């Protein structure tokens, strides 16, 4: 039986494919991009640990052939923090949804960012709670619809990148399920950053977000990403009014600051003599 390209054979539990996601779900595109980034970096698979919470997006690690951990809703970063502290030599990658990461898990997000712990978080951001049937999330744009916002959402949406930046993440970027080559590079750079990295990966959920908001089919939603993303390097060329309806992609922040597990180990060194 044909079990896919070499990339798929190398990095997936192919006996579990095809995955459970709906036709045209962007999560499949993003999951493949993450594995291509890992492969491009030639990481030792035994040294990679992928952690998720609960949601459609959080099912990704079930298919990925690495050390994987599927945890509880919102807590992926809490588990990932424990793993990284216990085994700092691991490359810890969190795959999470906009709900998982910025609603129930928002507190873990801001503190993981504040600590600058060496974890790469990739948010599969589809602007809705997919798994539970289309409730609005903290990234649902204002005035759009969800089952819990039948007359329109009155909340202002989070800009996940600004949130991570403000909280102290040292690598921050946004990509999309349409701009795959760029996304792969952003994930590679995020993994290479020694500190907390966040990549806001814009996905598409044709089944709930798409239907609730009359965004058309998967193909239409992909065209929306294609036509409305503006690269951060090109932002200056656009007038403010035009940018209002667009969203910005690319690398926003790439800095170096003391990393949490390093700082923790320094403390351990300092107090070692007390345990003689």
């Amino acid at each position, binding site marked *: 039986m044909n079990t896919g390209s070499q990339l798929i054979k190398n990095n997936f539990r192919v006996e579990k*494919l095809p995955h459970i996601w709906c036709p045209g779900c962007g999560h499949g595109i993003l999951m493949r991009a993450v594995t291509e980034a890992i492969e491009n970096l030639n990481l030792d698979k035994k040294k990679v640990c992928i952690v998720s919470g609960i949601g459609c997006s959080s099912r990704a690690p079930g298919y990925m052939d690495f050390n994987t951990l599927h945890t509880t809703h919102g807590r992926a970063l809490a588990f990932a923090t424990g793993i990284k502290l216990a085994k700092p030599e691991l490359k810890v990658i969190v795959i999470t949804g906009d709900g998982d990461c910025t609603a129930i898990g928002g507190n873990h997000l801001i503190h993981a960012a504040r600590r600058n712990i060496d974890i790469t978080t990739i948010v599969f951001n589809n602007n809705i709670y997919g798994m539970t049937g289309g409730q609005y999330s903290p990234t649902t744009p204002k005035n759009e619809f969800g089952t819990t916002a039948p007359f329109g959402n009155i909340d202002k949406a989070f800009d996940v990148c600004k949130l991570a930046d403000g909280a102290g993440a040292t690598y921050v970027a946004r990509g999309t399920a349409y701009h795959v*080559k760029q996304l792969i590079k952003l994930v590679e750079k995020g993994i290479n950053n020694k500190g907390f990295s966040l990549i806001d990966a814009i996905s598409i959920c044709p089944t709930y977000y798409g239907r609730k908001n009359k965004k058309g089919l998967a193909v239409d939603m992909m065209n929306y990403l294609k036509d409305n993303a503006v690269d951060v390097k090109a932002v200056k060329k656009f007038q403010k009014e035009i940018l209002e309806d667009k969203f910005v992609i690319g690398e926003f922040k790439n800095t170096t600051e003391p990393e949490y597990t390093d700082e923790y180990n320094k403390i351990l060194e300092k107090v070692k003599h007390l345990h003689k």
Partner: protein
Amino acid sequence: MVISNTDKELKIIEKWCKGCGICVEFCPKDVLEVLDETIFIRDLENCIKCGFCELRCPDYAIYLEGDSNE
């Protein structure tokens, strides 16, 4: 080993395809078609082996064999 584009072979896995049409929409050479909710290679002659279908297929049901990852 350097593998040139022309050495690559376009492959499909019908069983994995969910008929979303994404590969069809973004193929620059109009090679592909969805027939009865499954991917169909209509015009292999025109395929330039760019790999965009593979990059964007949510279900890994279309790919180039012998590509740089192999």
